[in-house]
């Protein structure tokens, strides 16, 4: 306790700047008196959409150069040494439209932690050696990890690129191999100067912090240069025409499939919550109650799981609840079929699309609707368990301009939305005739031929299945997809994200 009082006294004694920077957005505050930790989330309105052409990956690399590299006062290894006893760290998350510098520390350690975070933001060193190291790591991520070590993450990355091709969203946040190799220290400095300005940052602060800390943070961020970069227009993803297919050819033991289309509705809109009900019923993330999970995994044992999304959901393979601070103005619908045996790839794709087709054409039933809205009303309680996560949601609320917090609105609308609204929203926004399909597979040419021929894809199992499943299999195996030869392309894995 005495340590904490000492800390507060230290902070109060720090020089305070009375002036609040002009045009600064209001800070997002989440005080939790009994929380023994302080969470920082500093939101800079910059992301991969701001990458200059030919410099894809610059936003992410710049963010890493702030939080995983030297400052003008300390080498990076010295920073690590100082953070070490605090068990605290800070880091950057750069997504399409947002970069959030976040950190968390115990209040006992705040006085030691804060100056390190501050210096990382205000006085980065931008050393060549740090750039070389972080670039090398990113290249390893693209050339080895993403291309080879997780086919499902690879498929999702290709899908996102294809859906937003030709827009500022249309490249991997990590960048491309060619662009990364061209990025210089001067590029990083220029990007930092243009985007890490006092007019382009929103403070997020939560937990057991003191008012003095907020004042200090404001005063420090006021030292960033003024100015805000020109806004980037919201992307207009190209309209899809029919079903188009990208097959990624690589040696692999199974086929990972992702399907999607651009979605013109974002959270805050009443229709979004209507779609959320249907989406949850069809494929709630990592939940066994979803319809796709039941059909593909539970009844047929074809893979480990099958899910759908109405918002971008990066790192879905390693998280159980939605991420924060990946907010964006243009969203996508995404259907994720986890790896299936190659011989079941055509069948599994058909099974999934048949379910979506049935949902859109027939709508949810009253019983399904009732169960699902009850489920979501409580399930979303688990979305923001920690102070940091709640702060993340509050920042996203600000991004989307929500006067009523998203999760509050979510729960309220579960009581207000009607079945008719849900089914109408489905028909309006889920355009199933126009889809992008990505499969990471081996023997892509044969799969392409089968898809174009709309050839029957009968399924066989190692064990008996109930009669109802066998009967449905007959329909699934001939479910028409109507894919044109010209709409299928095969891409060798080594060419992905090259330039």
């Amino acid at each position, binding site marked *: 306790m005495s340590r904490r009082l000492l800390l507060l006294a230290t902070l109060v004694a720090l020089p305070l700047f009375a002036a609040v920077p002009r045009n600064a957005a209001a800070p997002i505050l989440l005080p939790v008196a009994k929380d023994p930790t302080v969470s920082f989330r500093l939101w800079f309105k910059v992301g991969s959409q701001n990458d200059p052409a030919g410099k894809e990956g610059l936003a992410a690399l710049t963010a890493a150069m702030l939080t995983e590299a030297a400052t003008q006062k300390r080498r990076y290894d010295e920073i690590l040494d100082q953070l070490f006893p*605090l*068990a605290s760290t800070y880091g950057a998350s750069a997504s399409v439209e947002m970069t959030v510098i976040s950190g968390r520390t115990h209040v006992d350690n705040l006085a030691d932690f804060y100056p390190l975070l501050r210096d990382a933001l205000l006085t980065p060193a931008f050393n060549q050696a740090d750039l070389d190291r972080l670039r090398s790591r990113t290249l390893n991520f693209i050339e*080895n990890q993403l291309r080879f070590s997780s086919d499902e993450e690879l498929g999702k990355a290709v899908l996102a690129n294809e859906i937003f091709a030709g827009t500022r969203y249309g490249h991997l946040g990590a960048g491309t191999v060619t662009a990364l190799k061209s990025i210089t220290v001067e590029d990083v400095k220029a990007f930092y100067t243009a985007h890490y300005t006092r007019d382009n940052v929103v403070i997020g602060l939560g937990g057991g912090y003191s008012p003095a800390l907020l004042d200090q943070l404001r005063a420090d961020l006021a030292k960033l240069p003024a100015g805000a970069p020109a806004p980037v227009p919201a992307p207009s993803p190209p309209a899809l025409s029919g079903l188009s297919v990208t097959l990624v050819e690589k040696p692999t*033991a199974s086929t990972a499939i992702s399907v999607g289309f651009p979605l013109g509705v974002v959270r805050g809109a009443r229709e979004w919550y209507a779609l959320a009900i249907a989406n949850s019923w069809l494929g709630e993330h990592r939940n066994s109650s979803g319809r796709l999970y039941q059909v593909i995994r539970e009844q047929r044992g074809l893979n480990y799981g099958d899910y759908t999304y109405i918002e971008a959901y990066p790192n879905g393979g390693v998280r159980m609840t939605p991420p924060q601070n990946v907010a964006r103005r243009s969203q996508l619908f995404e259907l994720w079929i986890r790896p299936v045996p190659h011989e079941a790839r055509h069948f599994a794709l058909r099974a999934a699309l048949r379910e979506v087709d049935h949902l859109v054409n027939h709508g949810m039933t009253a019983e399904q609707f009732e169960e699902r809205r009850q489920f979501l009303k409580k399930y*979303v309680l688990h979305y923001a368990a920690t102070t940091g996560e709640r702060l993340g949601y509050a920042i996203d609320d600000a991004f989307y301009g929500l006067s009523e917090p998203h999760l509050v609105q979510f729960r309220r609308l579960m009581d207000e939305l009607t079945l008719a609204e849900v089914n109408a929203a489905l028909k309006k926004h889920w355009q199933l005739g126009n889809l992008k399909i990505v499969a990471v597979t081996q023997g892509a040419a044969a799969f392409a031929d089968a898809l174009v021929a709309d050839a029957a894809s009968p399924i066989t199992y190692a064990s008996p299945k109930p009669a109802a499943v066998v009967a449905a299999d007959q329909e699934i195996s001939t479910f028409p997809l109507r894919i044109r030869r010209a709409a299928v392309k095969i891409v060798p894995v080594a060419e992905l994200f090259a330039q």
Partner: protein
Amino acid sequence: MRPLFLALAAVLVTAAGTVAAPPPRVFPYPYEKHTLPNGLTAIFVPMQSPGVVAYYSVVRTGSRDEVEEGKSGFAHFFEHMMFRGTPKYPQAAYEGIVTKIGANTNAYTTDDHTAYHLKIAAEDLPKVIEIEADRFQNLAFSKIVFQTEAGAVYGEYRKSISSPFALLNERLQDLAYDAHTYKHTTIGFERDIMVMAGQFDYSLSFFKRFYRPENVVLVVAGDVEPKATLALIEHHYGSWARGYVAPAITPEPPQQAERTAEVTYPGKTLPILTVAYKGDAFDPDNRDYVAALLLGELAFGETSELRKRLLLREQRVQMLAASIPQNRDQPLFSIYAMIKKPEDIAAIRDEIYKTIEQFKETPVDATRLRDLKRRNKYSFLMGLDTPDAVAAGLARFISLTGDIAVIDRLYAAADAVTAEDLMRAAKKYFVPERRNVIVLKGGQS
């Protein structure tokens, strides 16, 4: 109405501590521990978490217990089967309940334990106790359902094995162990997974032997009222019959000489070097073991001299880290390095050996040791911020000892580690005859 209550072997531990000369409290929450006459233990951790509860059922059985030939991966497979319903609540009924209450529910299997967990609204706790008690006692699934799930498990293996680290660990454990079940990873050998569909009868025996009250610990953390919750647990689990049959796990004979292997990953990756030494089982009273827990971080962690040089200054490795696990039996103390140039593998290996020799002969800097002790405590405290994090954090200790009192003992032991202890531990564990070295290279690199 509640005669059982009086018969309970209850231990109440408060924040102030009630046991004579206890180690200093590190675990920050008061908790209660109760053991029912049938051996089932329940631990309650009330904490501020308005309206939310984490409910964990920790079964002290994992892939370690897969002693029969050809049954590797079965504990994990069986975890899947636990969601297949009972006569009272068939699968659809169970699913319907957890869906209706908006529970966030899942399970996981490790080498030493299996945990079933739900995050729920506090008002739904009575129903959850009822359905969890029911499935742990009355699980029933058909052969067809069992066989179909075998396909899903194989799908899980396929999606995981595309990682070079998964392949590496599979081969490493196979290389390092001859007799003990740590020879296989938790998901099991592919050859065993492929034939799981034929093991229906074995699955029934697995349930009977391992899913017994004396082998299970419940953890209820968050917005929980212990007295009322205990009464519900007694009511629903009280008639669960004892019957745990401990598996006859063959101890691993001492390794006599270094073992080496090369693995080819079918995709493209930077080479990964693993140097893994036979360690000791978890034991907070084993000073060498506790010192080794610290040694991994000091010698190869984020602020180690070797990592600073190889990763930050010379940029010869993409990654360098050590893993000193906490296990019921003898695990591997492993050092991993992802190396940028294949021709540098031998030199990096020698750098690792050189570092180990230095730690055998040179006392560690007192400030570094003090900093690490402080870091470990804050890291533990900061991680306990939600009911789920608390229950998940306790699960490993429960798996190791059946209890959580060991946490304070472990931190007290770690606090007492000296520079001499570290040198002694380095000399004991990090020797060639305990060593297993694997190099993984990409086939397309």
